[in-house]
């Protein structure tokens, strides 16, 4: 930690007063370009300077990126969020495989990946010439060490990826051989493209990473960027790794700035103080930001979800008719148009994103409030006292719908859903609570065996759950060991059978048949209501750096965006 503040406070105050009182011309000249580092080519808004002629290849490029909320020291045991925390982690580390622009894993640190017939054994050779940031060569032994290390220190996030790994060996010809207990068709996506490879010489001395306090000296990776400075809750400074095995990165420095909230980041990109926002911008900002020169927007479908959960283990949501009626009563297109201003994909009742090859086109969303009313009437949920709310077991169908106040779009969705459900005689009051309170009610202790403390809740999963289609089983299987993300307490024998089979099906065609079947079953049995998949939209200053790569479903925040086009997967 540099102690810049130790300068006498008095000087600061004097200087501050001087600045405040100084005439505006003077302060304009010095502060109009908070792009400070003379190397960046960023224009203050409104200034009409000629297009930057200074962007010659020799000029070092610094990209300043905004994130919301700190990520600690961003090593494999300390980063906080799945997005963008993991993405920043992987700027420094490499995985054996790397997602390409279509979201398909391609060989990366491994220059070849082969699997046996029944997908229980994966064999990889490691590229030549990859080195660690400290200059040591990266070898197959580091890879084996990494696998063993994550398996042994099971509290880390990557240990789960390696469940089912029976052995990790280095063969006589220097290849890595991983044996699995059961076929795992998604092993490349889930493990090989996810796990950061660690340098053995750095980590072998760290016995219990869960109890370790890290500083950034541990952040020795093989990736295109090296973390050189970290100010907690202020900024991260990454220098390009000139010896990167795929080639020198396209930019020289990446500065990641931590903001307290979204509006701070928006203000900063508009004032030219940052060059890209590593979080999705809210739909209403897309047009506005795009209209401002030199800002541009990179936009595309993503795999995060917005959904409604209900406690399907208790009345009245244990009744299929009620769940189906809710699915039919919700106008998802209206939600996409009103809340997302069109920048989202309408949710498929079968979970799988329509842009994915695994999507079953027979499963389509239906909006039909009349049919929903008929279903509820037939199932005996009448409005006997004429107050517009139906009754069940003698009680009114009046529920509280929990949302987290930190997600304003989700709050609006909840409001709209409550209006829509009122039309079919289900009363819903939206209760907006602070995030940890909401999480604890929907997913107490992050363990579904603790049950649920809600009736209806607005919810959403991050992109990785959708990205790997096989993970569908985790969401719907009634066995808590398999369906550990089954937050709604849903149980159905057919769904259990098909989803269990899917997990170990090695044959791609048979696997797809199971996925198709499962989508139909989910759409029929409604374990949850999937409302929409919001688009990803990222704003960047095209004068500073414009070659951002939008990885399908995952967005622009990855090392791929910052490599020269020829070096990308």
């Amino acid at each position, binding site marked *: 930690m540099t102690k810049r503040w130790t300068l006498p406070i008095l000087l600061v105050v004097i200087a501050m007063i001087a600045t405040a009182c100084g005439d505006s011309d003077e302060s304009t000249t010095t502060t109009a370009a908070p792009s400070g580092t003379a190397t960046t080519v960023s224009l203050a808004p409104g200034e009409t300077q000629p297009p930057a002629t200074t962007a010659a290849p020799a000029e070092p490029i610094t990209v300043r990126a905004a994130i919301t909320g700190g990520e600690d020291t961003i090593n494999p045991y300390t980063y906080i969020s799945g997005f963008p925390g993991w993405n920043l982690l992987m700027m420094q580390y490499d995985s054996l495989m790397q997602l390409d622009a279509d979201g398909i894993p391609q060989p990366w640190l491994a220059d070849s990946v082969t699997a046996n017939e029944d997908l229980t054994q994966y064999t990889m050779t490691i590229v030549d010439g990859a080195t660690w940031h400290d200059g040591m060569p990266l070898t197959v032994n580091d890879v084996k060490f990494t696998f063993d290390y994550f398996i042994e220190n099971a509290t880390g996030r990557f240990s789960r990826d390696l469940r089912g790994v029976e052995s990790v060996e280095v063969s006589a010809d220097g290849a890595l051989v991983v044996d699995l207990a059961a076929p795992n068709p998604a092993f490349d996506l889930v493990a090989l493209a996810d796990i950061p490879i660690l340098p053995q010489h750095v980590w072998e001395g760290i016995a219990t990473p869960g109890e370790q306090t890290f500083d950034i000296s541990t952040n020795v990776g093989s990736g295109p960027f090296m973390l050189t400075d970290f100010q907690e809750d202020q900024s991260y400074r990454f220098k390009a790794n000139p010896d990167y095995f795929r080639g020198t990165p396209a930019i020289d420095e990446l500065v990641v700035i931590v903001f307290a909230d979204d509006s701070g980041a*928006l203000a900063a990109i508009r004032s030219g103080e940052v060059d890209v926002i590593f979080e999705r911008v*809210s739909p*209403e*900002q897309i047009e506005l930001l795009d209209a401002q020169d030199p800002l541009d927007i990179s936009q595309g479908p993503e795999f995060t979800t917005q959904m409604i959960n209900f406690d399907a283990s208790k009345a009245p949501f244990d009744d299929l008719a009620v769940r189906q009626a809710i699915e039919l009563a919700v106008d998802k297109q209206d939600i996409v148009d009103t809340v997302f201003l069109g920048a989202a994909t309408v949710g498929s009742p079968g979970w799988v994103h329509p842009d994915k090859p695994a999507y079953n086109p027979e499963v389509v969303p239906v909006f039909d409030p009349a049919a929903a009313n008929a279903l509820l009437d037939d199932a005996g949920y009448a409005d006997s006292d004429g107050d517009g709310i139906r009754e069940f077991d003698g009680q009114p169908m009046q529920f509280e719908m929990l949302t987290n106040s*930190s997600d*304003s779009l989700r709050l609006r969705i909840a409001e709209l859903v409550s209006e829509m459900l009122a039309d079919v005689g289900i009363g819903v009051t*939206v209760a*907006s*609570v*602070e995030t940890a309170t909401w999480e604890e009610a929907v997913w107490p202790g992050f363990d579904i065996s603790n049950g649920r403390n809600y009736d209806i809740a607005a919810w959403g999963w991050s992109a990785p759950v959708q990205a790997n289609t096989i993970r569908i089983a985790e969401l719907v299987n009634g066995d808590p060991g398999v369906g550990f993300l089954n937050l709604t307490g849903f149980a159905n024998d057919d769904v259990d059978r098909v989803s269990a089979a899917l997990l170990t099906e090695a044959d791609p065609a048979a696997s797809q048949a199971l996925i198709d079947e499962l989508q139909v079953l989910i759409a029929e049995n409604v374990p949850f209501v999937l409302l929409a998949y919001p688009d990803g939209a990222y704003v960047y200053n095209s004068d500073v750096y414009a070659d951002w790569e939008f990885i399908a479903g995952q967005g622009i925040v990855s090392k791929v965006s910052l490599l020269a086009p020829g070096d990308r997967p």
Partner: protein
Amino acid sequence: MTAVESPKKRGRGKSAKLADRLGWTGGVMVAALVFMAVAAPWIAPYDPTERVGRPFSAPSAEHLLGTNDVGQDLLSELIYGARVSLTVGIVAAVVALILGTTVGILAGYYPKRLGSFLMRTVDVVLILPFLPLLIVLAAYLGRSLINTIIVIGVLIWAGPARVIRSQVLSLRSREYVLASRTMGAPDRWAIVRHVLPRTALLATGTFVRAVSTAILLEAALSFLGLGDPIQKSWGSILFWAQARGAFLTPAWKWWVLPPGLMIMIASLGFALIAFAMEERINPRL
């Protein structure tokens, strides 16, 4: 910060009249807002919960202040917002007043053990961490407008309790109270007959100030995401303006400025009344 009191006569002259005038200005402002709140259904052009226009519309003949992020009429939200904001402000202040006056009178009248205990409680409440307290209260009281009101009331009662206690302490030593005590009248009688009426004016002044504090606090809670953004209050309009980036777009003129000004007017109105009342209680000021 109770300065030493030394009663000295000084005529209520021109300045008192001016203070009264300020008080009346405040009164008119508050009355206008209360009228707006009561008459909202008749004044407001639309139902603020209905989506009546395109989201993010600029002001037009149909929507004088444009629409918000889901197409609700901002003018109607602003008018209806008076209901929630004023209710929160006034009811929370009532809660604070009841708590503060009771504690203040008891502590002032029985300064020994009970008073000492109560004042230590006040000291503790004044330094308790605000945010976790808020979340804990919300968790155990449930989530509703009532909850927001109680939370704010509970958070702001301690200050007034101190002020009222010192007033009662000085009253306690006055002749009439001492007289009634020596004559054997029960404490309850002395409190009701002598202390309460003389504290009432001060309490009302404190109360009016508490209203403006509560209105500001409600807005701040909304901003931190700890309020209830679904309720149509001025604070929640600002929450949405902030959440949907209106501070940085031209929309700030019709989305951000008006609710901020309303909060300011309401808070100012009550503060002016409070000022005029304090002027009456202690004419020297």
